[in-house]
């Protein structure tokens, strides 16, 4: 049953993803890309399991690497996005 | 009740005070309408039209003058006509009460209730009777046409195989009823329109018609409670002239409509400014008849001053006599209708009414109008 549930979830998420991103003004393309890139850092959650799960040295090493990389993605991604969007704000206020 | 409609005496006046359609409405209200023969001819309405409308066409002017309870006309009566009027009659026409004290006295003496169409208040409720507005609006249109006809260029921009013709610039000074209509008409024809008025609230009205408002800082100006402009101080007038000079020099057509109700209009365009304009430019001085906003304008005439045409025709609405008659007639009808007693089928002047307070000048043998009375004392 699990894979079925997972497929359903996959299917629904994909549809939802499609519906969410429609008619975005082009000025927002880059921040949107960057923002959703940050979300893809969710792999951090998986990495934490590997790093802290005590599955042996190799898994831990891989896990820690994954945690570090994913964290870069998450932290850097959100911050960069925010910086970009802050810039928009300023430009609009400036007008 | 007998209403008498007189034919206008001046040969150049084409308008009629009452058109057949409105005469018919009056008849329906229960009035007896007497029309002087030939009254509407020059505005395009024959005596038969009036007869068909239910009015009685009478050739004898004196009979109407003497017999009618209400006299309807455009221009003020001549002094010698006044004694011919019935005592207690109502006389409705332009009166120019500020400048015609003798006439007013005569009317009072004759016990005539004289209503001055100029004095209808500029209130929202009275607008339908307001002949200054209706005729002024037509004047705005006519002035632009006159200026355009006199100009050696066309108004709109045209980008053609034979080069680009620049749009003409029209500068309208004074954006009251006539000025606004002038702005609208010039805009319609494709001109660039700039306008100025001392009342600051007018800026928005100008841009609402697509015109540009010329900003000149005159300090405190204002308008009377009736919406009329107050007179500027000499310093302010000087400021205004300076502010306008450049705009006038750059304009192809200047139209001045700056009147001050009941006073001599200010001179806004000096001879010097006229000279600064390009040859072929045109100036229309709406106020020429009452003294003029433009130095060098001559009432009733079109003159050339160093290549610049100055048009001072006056009585502008008269050039579109049919429409002007229709509107004046509607103003008169609305006035009568407002104060008509349907039971008694007669006109009843209630001097407590805001509108009548403003426009009835003489009544019961006296001058009853506040403004005119103050002027006298």
């Amino acid at each position, binding site marked *: 049953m699990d894979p079925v549930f997972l497929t359903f*979830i*996959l299917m629904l*998420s*994909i549809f939802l*993803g*499609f519906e*969410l*991103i429609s008619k*975005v003004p*082009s000025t*927002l*393309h*880059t*921040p*949107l*890309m960057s923002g*959703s*890139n*940050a*979300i893809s*850092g*969710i*792999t951090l*959650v*998986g*990495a934490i*399991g*590997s*790093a802290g799960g*005590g*599955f*042996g040295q*190799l898994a*831990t090493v*891989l*896990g*820690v690497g*994954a*945690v*570090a*990389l994913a*964290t*870069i*993605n*998450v*932290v*850097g*991604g959100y911050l*960069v996005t*925010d*910086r970009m*969007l*802050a*810039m*928009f704000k300023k430009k*609009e206020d400036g007008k | 009740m007998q209403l008498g409609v007189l034919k206008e005496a001046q040969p150049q006046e084409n308008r009629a005070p009452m058109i057949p359609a409105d005469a018919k409405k009056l008849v329906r209200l229960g009035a007896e309408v007497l029309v002087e023969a030939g009254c509407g001819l020059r505005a395009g309405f024959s005596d038969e039209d009036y007869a068909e409308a239910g009015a009685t066409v009478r050739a004898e002017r004196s009979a109407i003058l003497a017999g009618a309870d209400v006299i309807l006309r455009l221009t003020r009566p001549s002094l010698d006509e006044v004694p011919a009027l019935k005592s207690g009659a109502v006389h409705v026409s332009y009166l120019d009460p500020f400048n015609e004290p003798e006439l007013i006295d005569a009317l009072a003496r004759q016990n005539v209730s004289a209503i001055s169409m100029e004095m209808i208040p500029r209130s929202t409720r009275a607008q339908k009777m307001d002949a200054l507005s209706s005729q002024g609006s037509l004047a705005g249109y006519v002035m632009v046409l006159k200026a355009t006809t006199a100009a050696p260029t066309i108004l*709109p*921009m*045209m*980008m053609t195989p034979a080069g680009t013709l620049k749009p003409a610039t029209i500068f309208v000074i004074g954006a009251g009823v006539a000025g606004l209509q002038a702005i609208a008409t010039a805009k319609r024809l494709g001109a660039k329109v700039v306008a100025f008025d001392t009342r600051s609230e007018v800026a928005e009205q100008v841009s609402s018609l697509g015109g540009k408002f010329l900003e000149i800082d005159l300090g405190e100006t204002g308008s009377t409670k009736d919406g009329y402009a107050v007179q500027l101080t000499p310093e302010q007038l000087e400021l205004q002239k300076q502010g306008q000079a450049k705009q006038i020099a750059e304009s192809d057509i200047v139209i001045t409509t700056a009147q001050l109700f009941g006073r001599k209009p200010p001179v806004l365009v000096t001879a010097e400014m006229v000279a600064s304009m390009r040859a072929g430019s045109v100036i229309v001085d709406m106020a020429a008849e009452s003294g003029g906003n433009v130095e060098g304008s001559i009432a009733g005439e079109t003159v050339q001053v160093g290549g610049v045409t100055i048009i001072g025709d006056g009585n502008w609405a008269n050039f579109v006599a049919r429409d002007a008659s229709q509107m004046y007639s509607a103003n008169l009808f609305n006035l009568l209708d407002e104060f008509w007693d349907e039971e008694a089928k007669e006109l009843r002047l209630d001097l407590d009414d805001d509108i009548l307070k403003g426009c009835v000048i003489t009544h019961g043998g006296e001058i009853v109008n506040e403004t005119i009375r103050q002027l006298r004392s």
Partner: protein
Amino acid sequence: MNTLLLINLAYVVSAVLFIFGLKQLGSAATARRGNFISACGMLIAVVVTLLDQGIVDFRWIALGVAIGAVIGLLGARLIAMTAMPEMVALFNGFGGLASLLVGWAVLYEADHATFTLVTVALSILIGGLTFTGSMVAWGKLSETISSKPLQFAGQQFVNGLLVLTILAVAAVFITDQANAELLYALIALSFIFGVMAVMPIGGGDMPVVISLLNSYSGLAACAAGFAVNNIILIVSGSLVGASGIILTQIMCKAMNRSLANVLFSGFGTVKTSTTTIEGEINPIEAQDAYFILEAASSVVIVPGYGMAVAQAQHVVKELQELLEENGCEVVYGIHPVAGRMPGHMNVLLAEADVSYDLLLEMDEINTRMPNMDVAIVIGANDVVNPAAKEIEDSPIYGMPIISVDQAKTVFVLKRSMASGFAGIDNPLFFKENTRMLFGDARQSLTQVVREFE
């Protein structure tokens, strides 16, 4: 069980926050808030994961998080505003690599069920190609490596071979229960594939590539989620994957390219054919026109008789205003003989209250044309016909025209391929940078205008 339920409920919450965040990122007014909401979702997901009873050792996690956070923070803070896009590429690559590692680590954690192995292989493949692809993109954008498309003979063949090898290796890896050498081969192949896929694409197309790789890194996370059986990874990963694909397509449209064109222009032979083939026209839809206009910063509108026939002047004015609101400069190029009478265009544009200052004469607009992003030809034909310059025996040869063909992109709005007053064909319609928007000009413009939300 209780913690597990709690964790999972928290995951639901963070998924909801991601969804809201993504939605709000799509509108300028709420984008910043959206980013914050999505960050909150991430925080919740990470924090509750730490509650998992399966986690026995926090030290290494803390170490990894600390390293990552510092690098991420510094990276995001210190880079110049102009270097943002390559930064996004870099981050994205790290995300992909992380997914690869997570998938890899699973091999030492759980049983090697076929399903798990499939997902592991997918995580590794997608994660790996995302990683190297992003690195190449970063290099091209930051000019660390040449931004020119790198192409060589037989490229297509090599790439085909690569794909086949990958498939084969992956298949054996799965059936062979995670053979270590094959694992390394798979990782290496995914890396090579990422490089091969992105190298042939020019620097100008990198934003699209990054967007696509971003979508991939979402899919990698999703695959990793299947591998570690974690639902939040699956949901967020597929959200990112799907929205990324859509975004990529939108961006392609805004660049007036198809995705295939972007990706495979390098794979195939260099396309030279289209320029020579006269007779190829490019019709587009109002929506595509919108995407291009939305991105333009200077637009010239060239009206002709068709605008008058369609009585499109009012909607033209509206379009002008919308473009101006969007920060775009709009002017009108008026050809002296446009229309059917002298000044025809002036009459109409004045009716629509277009400011006289915006009406440029032919000569003036022609000098500015090469700087124009888009020229919109509205029902004009003869007056923009390059035959007057190019075809010596044309009856209009020598007539000055408005050279719209020198603008970056030209839209021609007319109903058909019919000729104009002079009755001659128009080579403009066949130019490479010309897009035909067929239909009554007023209707077409109305549709474009409606696209502006």
